[in-house]
């Protein structure tokens, strides 16, 4: 036993020495191994997008081996009976062949699609976390902007991706994109003709978006993701306020082994979830849609969820066409589609600069803010969230109308009114909730915890006993400062009562053999 251990030690030392001789690694490697990372579950949302992206590259490579981005017309002769003898593009035929005649092809297609949805969803949720906690503030505005660009490149990467199979649904999506492109003043028709090499749909668009989808955009995404993660690393991660945490330090655990092991585990977990979904849940059954024909469409034609809010805006925008006959027409769709998308890109990009300007706060911030502590920002963010949700629901308003037996026109009008009114209400309500939460924190700090113990004094008055968090002054008040972090609201949080039982099937509060349970609680209390 001892001898073997000695051998492996010296082997490691020897290998390390050889590597260091060549690459001079000892210094940088130590810095890397020891780097301290703060810990909180919400810091891992972006990672979901990163891990989905890796899986997208892998599954996409598989699909690219079998997919032919050609719009040559062929007659389907494959195994799927309902489409036999039907004329279609080679792109659609090869997508069908991947689904039916390639070993594991359907599994890979569904994995690619599910991973895309998770990628975009994770970006959105990650973005909300960054926004509501103020993590985009100086010095991290650049990385916020890179993140916004990542979302929009991902948006078009995904849109082009589901347009590639050239099935009935994807052709409809391209048709709508064409109509939007045409609406741009002065350059619209030329832009559309450039995109489709002439009239829509033409015979070139699939090969063009193919090269964008498999090469240009993945390259941009990869480059931006490397910079994005690299900046998080170089600028050091933000952290929540808490005991011992300041603007000038990072409290957490080391990159190796702790952080890396959790990351690897989390990555495999995400992949496992996507893998299981790819096998168990059907997505985008293109063989049901048939080849794209300009004269055919079905109801319930919805884009993927991240495109839906834009589709919803297009549905809701009134029929306001600006015309100076016979010289000029500005189609109604220009406003929601082109102007709306432009605003959706520019407003988030500029938000950090706008907030700096209006709050005149130019300092660096490495400690996060709780959403309640910045009601105006939280309110604005919730406005956007509600606006987005109304858009998404309206993007599927025909499905809602059908499933719930509501009038389609009523759905549209509800969307139109909701889009304007709900965000305003949301801002007010969010603002008030934030203030209320702030006030409750201050109350507990000043008067103590609500114990739930009711007392009756000799006059017959009932009152609740409060447990002060520190030694109170003669008025029963405590002068505790709010630290920007969770204020205990229950007796068991301050150790005055037994902790609530944790554990699902059986309690996990039993002391472990090293008697470390109490100490562990103490350590974790700083983090949550």
């Amino acid at each position, binding site marked *: 036993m001892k001898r073997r251990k000695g051998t492996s030690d010296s082997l490691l030392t020897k290998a390390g020495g050889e590597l260091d001789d060549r690459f001079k690694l000892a210094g940088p490697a130590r810095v890397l191994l020891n780097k301290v990372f703060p810990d909180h579950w919400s810091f891992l949302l972006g990672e979901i997008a990163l891990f989905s992206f890796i899986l997208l590259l892998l599954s996409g490579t598989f699909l690219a081996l079998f997919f032919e981005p050609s719009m040559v017309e062929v007659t389907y002769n494959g195994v799927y009976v309902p489409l036999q003898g039907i004329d279609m593009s080679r792109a659609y035929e090869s997508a069908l062949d991947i689904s039916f005649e390639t070993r594991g092809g359907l599994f890979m297609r569904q994995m690619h699609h599910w991973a895309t949805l998770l990628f975009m969803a994770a970006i959105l949720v990650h973005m909300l976390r960054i926004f509501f906690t103020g993590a985009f503030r100086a010095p991290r505005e650049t990385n916020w902007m890179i993140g916004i660009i990542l979302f929009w490149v991902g948006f078009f990467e995904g849109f082009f991706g589901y347009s590639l199979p050239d099935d009935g649904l994807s052709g409809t999506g391209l048709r709508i994109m064409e109509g939007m492109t045409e609406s741009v003043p002065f350059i619209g028709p030329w832009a559309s003709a450039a995109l489709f090499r002439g009239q829509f749909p033409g015979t070139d668009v699939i090969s063009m978006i193919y090269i964008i989808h498999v090469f240009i955009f993945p390259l941009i995404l990869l480059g931006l993701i490397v910079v994005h993660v690299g900046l998080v690393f170089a600028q050091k991660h933000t952290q929540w306020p808490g005991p011992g945490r300041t603007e000038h330090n990072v409290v957490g655990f080391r990159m190796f082994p702790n952080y890396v092991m959790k990351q690897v585990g989390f990555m495999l977990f995400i992949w496992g979830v996507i893998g299981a979904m790819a096998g168990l849940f059907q997505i985008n059954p293109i063989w049901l849609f048939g080849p794209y024909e300009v004269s055919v469409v079905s109801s319930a034609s919805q884009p993927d969820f991240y495109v839906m809010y834009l589709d919803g805006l297009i549905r809701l925008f009134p*029929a306001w066409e600006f015309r100076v006959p016979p010289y000029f027409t500005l189609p109604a769709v220009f406003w929601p589609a082109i102007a709306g998308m432009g605003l959706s890109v520019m407003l988030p990009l500029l938000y950090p600069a706008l907030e700096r300007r209006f709050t005149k706060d130019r300092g660096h911030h490495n400690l996060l803010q709780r959403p309640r502590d910045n009601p105006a920002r939280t309110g604005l963010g919730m406005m956007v969230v509600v606006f987005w949700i109304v858009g998404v629901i309206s993007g599927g308003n025909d499905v809602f109308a059908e499933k719930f037996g509501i009038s389609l026109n009523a759905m549209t009008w509800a969307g139109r009114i909701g889009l304007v009114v709900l965000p305003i209400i949301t801002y007010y309500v969010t603002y008030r909730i934030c203030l209320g939460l702030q006030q409750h924190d201050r109350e507990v700090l000043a008067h103590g915890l609500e114990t739930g113990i009711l007392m009756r004094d000799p006059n017959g008055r009932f009152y609740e006993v409060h447990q002060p968090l520190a030694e109170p002054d003669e008025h029963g008040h405590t002068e505790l400062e709010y630290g920007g972090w969770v204020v205990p609201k229950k007796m068991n949080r301050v150790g005055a009562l037994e902790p609530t039982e944790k554990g699902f099937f059986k309690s996990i509060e039993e002391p472990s*053999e090293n008697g*470390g349970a109490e100490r562990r609680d103490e350590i974790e209390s700083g983090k949550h």
Partner: protein
Amino acid sequence: MSAHNDSARPDAEPVDLSDPKLSRFEVYKEGLRRDDIEIIHYEPRFAKPGTKAEKRMERIVGGMFLFSGLFATAFVVAYIWWPWEYEGVATWRDLQTWYTPVLGTTLGLSLLLFAVGVLTWAKKLLPIEELVQDRHDGGSSAEDRRIAEATVDGLVEDMGLKRRPFLVKAALLGAAPLGLAAVAPLGALLKDPGDMLTVTGWNAEKYNDGEPIRLMMKDGALVRPDMVSAGGQLTVFPAIDHGATNQFPTSPVLLIRLREADAATLRGNLYPMYQDVDALWGNFVGYSKICTHVGCPASLYEQQSQRLLCPCHQSQFNVVDNAAPVFGPATRHLPLLPLDVDDEGYFIATSDFLVPPGPAFWNRPSLPEEDEK
């Protein structure tokens, strides 16, 4: 980052690494000190190594890894040997219908088990630690900045950027066209849209040597009035080469045979331009199927309310009023195709659409009649 080595924490003394009596931990702590890291808390997860609880945790984690390998093997085996070929209609008893679910379950379970194994290792077996590292937020030190400034100034000086303004301007003037030259080849993508947005497959001069173009169905059969019953509808295409394919994306027309009363209403409502060309034939009316909003086929015909609905964005058009938009985001009516019947009894289009069908664009020609509504 190694630049921070010299700014070590004031409260920690550097260790003399040449001291042979140093323990491994002391050497390691010197590394932390050099990276401005301080250990707040560090204790092994199990105070006594080799206790029952520790062994148990090891067995659990090890078991997860082994089961993960088992499921991965099952995935590979299923991938190779599970029957997978599509054989048409099948029930759940046919093994091949389970191919994709089996792949997903085995691979998913394998990855999840390995994931939970690694995570359990990290959370239940690694030492409990909490460290604090200096952030060194903000810019570089004043010294570094000064040195960088001097270096850049020297660079500017060496190149003479300030002394040689002519060179700078000439370089910029030369580089701008070079940049243009770099993107100019993209111009190959440009194509004159020409009349693609205004002329359709119904244009007799362009596609049929001036002879009126007949109406046909998707399969090529020519259309006669007796093929549609009252209240019925039919999607028709120009009877030219590839007329029913995507090569003529703005040509599809919805031919509707209205009931007597509805046809009379429509005649009364017709825009002057359509009255002039006598656009209806009998009770038949042909509307462009391409929505004037963004171009989906507005193809859901609701006989009761006499509306055409576009399923993409829910624009609705009134069939008995020139297919004028009555709800939703569309702003223009679906153009009528002027119809007639030739000597052999087949439908023909007497001309192309009078206004361009499909979505609008900035210089879309429109007739004054269009603006009346």
